């Protein structure tokens, strides 16, 4: 990893009760943190998106500027249309794009993503 745009991904397999279908989804809070390495001073301009084989990528939240602590609270997108489409597939890929500030970084970075979301099922 070098200075500049980088990407972290993670896969989530949501478990919805059998027979239930997700009708609407809204993310209300998104936080990112790092325990083994420090976000502080390393990362900037983080953008959290959802990707899936059965839905178009959606931008959910972002943090603008340089990280000045190990836990960042994102600004959540106002419009969150058709997010229920992501729950029709087997898995959802979390994509966090970010800028890495140091010129060179030789270790893996591990982020923990926490979010609150309102899911309405039928």
């Amino acid at each position, binding site marked *: 990893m070098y200075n500049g*745009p980088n990407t972290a991904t993670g896969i989530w397999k949501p478990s919805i009760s059998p027979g239930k279908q997700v009708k609407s989804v809204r993310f209300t809070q998104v936080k990112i943190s790092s325990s083994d390495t420090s976000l502080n001073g390393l990362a900037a301009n983080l*953008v959290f998106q959802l990707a899936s084989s059965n839905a178009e990528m959606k931008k959910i939240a*972002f943090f603008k500027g340089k990280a000045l602590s190990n836990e960042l609270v994102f600004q959540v997108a106002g419009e969150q249309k058709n997010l229920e489409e992501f729950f029709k597939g087997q898995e959802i890929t979390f994509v966090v794009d970010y800028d890495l500030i140091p010129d060179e970084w030789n270790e893996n970075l591990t982020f923990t993503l926490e979010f609150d979301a309102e899911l309405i099922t039928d």
Partner: protein
Amino acid sequence: MKKYTQLFTFFLLINFSAFSQTAEIKADQLTGVWEPSHGKARVKIDKIADKYFGKIVWLREPNDPSTQQPKVDKNNPDESLRQVPLKGYRILKDFIFKDGEWADGTIYDPENGSTYNCVVKMRDQNTLDIRGYIGIKTFGRTDVWKRLEIKKKP
């Protein structure tokens, strides 16, 4: 006769497997860093969840002349996303490789905040035809992107 059938099936399976690998290698040729014809940006295309996405990794003018601050997505239709930095912005989304081209994706133009349907064709290994359109492919515009060779740091 049974032996022949088994051999034939095995042969077919081997061939199918080879075909899948070739298709995947060809599809992955899209990954890399590309420069649109206007030269104002460079876009890195990568593969996420079996689709292809491209994000801006370099801007010729990284700062907005009016604010002297890093450019942001000021024309986004969603007002809450207008402070998202353009560097790192994913302007190509959700492309699937089929029939020798990358289709079903979209391209976003940050200069006007519009999203267009898009299909990508590879003219040769270092040249892409990126066609953005609304509705049907006939009514659109094609831009030629060139691959940039990235020199790894020693």
